[in-house]
């Protein structure tokens, strides 16, 4: 089965706190929940604990959800259904 955009529904329905992010700056691989979090800003800023580079920004203001992963080279998360992999 080819992967389609519909499969993104599966990704965004998951709890991502256990997802592993590869930092686009230094290449460190870290669980999302083990990053340095800066919630007291206009939006949540998540930084790599190894090099402090911004790996993720997430905002909820203005009636939109905003997700910036441009500082993340790779995000991996265990598929909920083994047959999906």
């Amino acid at each position, binding site marked *: 089965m080819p992967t389609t955009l519909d499969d993104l529904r599966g990704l965004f329905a998951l709890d991502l706190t256990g997802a592993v992010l590869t930092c686009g700056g230094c290449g460190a691989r870290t669980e999302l929940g083990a990053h*340095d979090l*800066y919630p*007291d*800003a*206009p*939006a949540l*800023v998540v*930084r790599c604990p190894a090099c*402090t580079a*911004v790996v993720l*920004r997430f*905002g909820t*203001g*203005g009636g*939109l959800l*905003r997700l*910036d992963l441009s500082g993340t080279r790779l995000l991996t998360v265990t598929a909920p259904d083994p047959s999906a992999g």
Partner: protein
Amino acid sequence: MAVVSRGFHGRGRRDRRLPPGQRDIGDGFPVLTAGPTPHTPLDEWDFVVQGQVDGLHRWTWEEFRALPHEPVTVDIHCVTSWSKFDTRWSGVAIDTLLDGVETAAEYVVAFSDGGYTTNLPLADLTEGQGWVVDTYEDEPLAPEHGGPARLLVPHLYFWKSAKWVRGLALTAFDEPGFWETFGYHDYGDPWREQRYAGD
């Protein structure tokens, strides 16, 4: 929508200083930060004006401190909806820093220790509208509030007043900064409630 006039005169006077969607934070001064607080030693600190200018203009901390400072008392407005009245600062006017600088640039990117950037039209920093401040309420500006020096552009949302500022890059084209690339408004006028792109 009807505009409701408050009957209490004193409250009404203060309300006129509040842009739409803002609340008066009173004596508080929230610390909003998107990263670790830099602690650059003053003997390593400098401030530069670069980009589309006739050479690099640079001041060490001692040189910056020796520039003419002026007191500034202004209201500030954070995009997260708090406003703070009558904040007292002291700093160097951008007009002073750009005195004698030849440029055809129309835009500025302010850049800071820690990698933060924000963009503004050059015309919004000049003619007494912008400062680099190093003093707050008669004390050296605390690191959590952007010390040793931060930009102060009070007529725009406070994210434009970059903490830990180290320089201005003058540019021919508008280059979105840290929050502007994340969907925040490119200009950020609190009186027009320009919080997000499209507002």
